[in-house]
């Protein structure tokens, strides 16, 4: 079919490896993937051909050290398409909590000899450092979206990754809304679809693993939850998890504080 199979590379930065594992988790499809693309560099799976050019580089993890900030530039130069996979690479990950804290203080508590640790004050998404061609959200990414991405690469089309709310999928599956029926603060209405609504199906709220949906209205949703008695601390912690540093979620604390002092129209009773 192809004169030359596309060369695929998988790179890891600050992350838990879960997103790379999603590729290995494609058990039934894995042999087909290996037939359709040349897996040239994927340390976790074995291949380590670092000789140069890749058609697509999948990047997992965030930038949290000076060394990684350099390394991502070199990788960008080697990849025709650079695709970030997962919450760490697309939004900075759970480790981006440091962005609101004091890294030096954390290091003092955690490491016996913190002076050996060379780290940045922040954990940032890959796109803050180099141009990213496409992103796959999620903590971890969805296996089907990953396969869709690879199929799109093989067949030369744009991957289809919807950006609407988690609610759309809850309703397609006829899952009862936990926010409306239980009064739980759920991030579904501001979170991007892709997780197959695992949490609401198990009677839990959405934790925002796929990051902000297109136009997330945190102000209005936050105001509703505040009105229902959820305190700002709880709501801030809910939003500041895997995707807390994503642009649509980053300002949650300010949004909630502003809501408290705002005279803008209240949702109707």
């Amino acid at each position: 079919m192809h004169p030359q199979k596309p060369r695929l590379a998988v790179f890891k930065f600050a992350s838990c490896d879960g997103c790379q594992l999603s590729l290995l988790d494609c058990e039934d499809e894995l042999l087909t993937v290996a037939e359709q693309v040349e897996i040239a560099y994927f340390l976790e799976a074995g291949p380590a051909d670092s000789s140069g050019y890749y058609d697509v580089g999948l990047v997992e993890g965030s930038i949290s050290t000076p060394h990684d900030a350099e390394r991502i530039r070199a990788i960008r130069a080697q990849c025709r398409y650079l695709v970030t996979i997962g919450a760490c690479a697309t939004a900075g990950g759970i480790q981006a909590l440091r962005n609101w804290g004091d890294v030096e203080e954390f290091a003092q508590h955690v490491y016996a000899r913190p002076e050996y640790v060379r780290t940045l004050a922040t954990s940032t998404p890959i796109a803050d450092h180099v141009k990213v061609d496409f992103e796959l959200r999620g903590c971890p990414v969805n296996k089907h979206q990953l396969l869709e991405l690879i199929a799109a690469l093989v067949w030369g089309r744009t991957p289809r990754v919807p950006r609407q709310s988690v609610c759309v999928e809850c309703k397609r599956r006829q899952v009862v809304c936990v926010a409306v029926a239980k009064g739980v603060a759920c991030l579904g209405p501001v979170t991007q679809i892709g997780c197959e609504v695992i949490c609401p199906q198990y009677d839990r709220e959405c934790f925002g693993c796929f990051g902000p949906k297109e136009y997330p209205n945190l102000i209005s949703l936050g105001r509703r939850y505040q009105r229902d008695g959820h305190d700002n601390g709880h709501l801030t912690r809910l939003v500041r998890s895997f995707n807390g540093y994503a642009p649509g979620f980053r300002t949650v604390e300010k949004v909630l504080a502003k809501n408290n002092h705002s005279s803008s129209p209240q949702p109707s009773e």
Partner: protein
Amino acid sequence: MTPPPAPGSSLWMPKPALQTLIDRLRADGYDVLGPRMADGAITLAPLRSVDELPRGVRDEQQPGRYRLTLADDGGYFDHVVGPHSLKPLVFPPRTTVLQVLRVRNGWEFRTPDPPRPKQAVLGVRACDLHALAIQDRVFLGGAYRDPEYAARREGLFLIAVNCARSAATCFCVSMNTGPAVTGGADLILTELANGFVVGVGSARGASYVGGMGERPPTAEEEAAAAAIPQRAAAQQTRRINTATVHDTLLNNLEHPRWAEVAKRCLSCANCTMVCPTCFCSTVNEVNDLLGTQTQRERVWESCFNEEHSHTASGAVHPTTKSRYRQWLTHKLATWIDQFGTSGCVGCGRCITWCPVGIDITEEVAAMEGGRA
């Protein structure tokens, strides 16, 4: 054997007969669905026994809020409409409409035969029957009939129930769609303390009654049954002025209220997903890695999503304001121009299941100039 009752006639039947009715439908190969309590709501779910019905359970509904309350006694149908409507039974949220296979000399196209399930639904309300009639016009009217909808619709057996109460979010009276069932069902139940008054809505419905302890209703029972939906109607506080809404909305396309509601609207699409008449879908071509198979999948879509109005030059409705305006004006105004009826049946689901409680009746009232 006495002949079956004629459509239009009514009977009284004892409460245990409901189980016999379910058993008869199941014996005839129907999957019986009915109201069942699950996940904090009255859902529409498979039903084998009347013991599974939410007896004495009431739903308290407010904008953005739904809670159940339990009473020791009470009827089988003390609740009103929950999050689920008939929509997914006839217009499934996800379905394959075309399969394409790579063969030696090209491609082979296959249209899958639509499934033909026999589904009987117990407890359907007047608003949802009206919604189904609207869907019939959308999917079966005109030159293009939807084959899957047609097949599923044919297999639908409907046992309606007259509402005994209204939720605070109900406004079917103003939409002229309830709460009394006026047609569109095979059987119509009104629950009394000692039994049901059963209206026979179709010949098919008639074939399922008889031999279950029925008798003609007394005049008192007839009067009591007629009073029940009237009482529910009297409880309604919300309304839409159907005489003026069409022109009000279309003459106010630049009203400041659109921008104001857009500040509250999450553009999350919940209103359209729970709406029993919203029919938008998208089709995705899903191909495998080898490129040997492609499926065209149809999934529920919403005018609140950017992709819904995506064109080569961008989204036609790029902002929440224009999406909300598109939804409301279509639902209540241009739907009439398109299909000859309103797209709204006053079930109130969009009010209850909106996470931030945006109230369609209040938005219309604001456009009317009552409240800005």
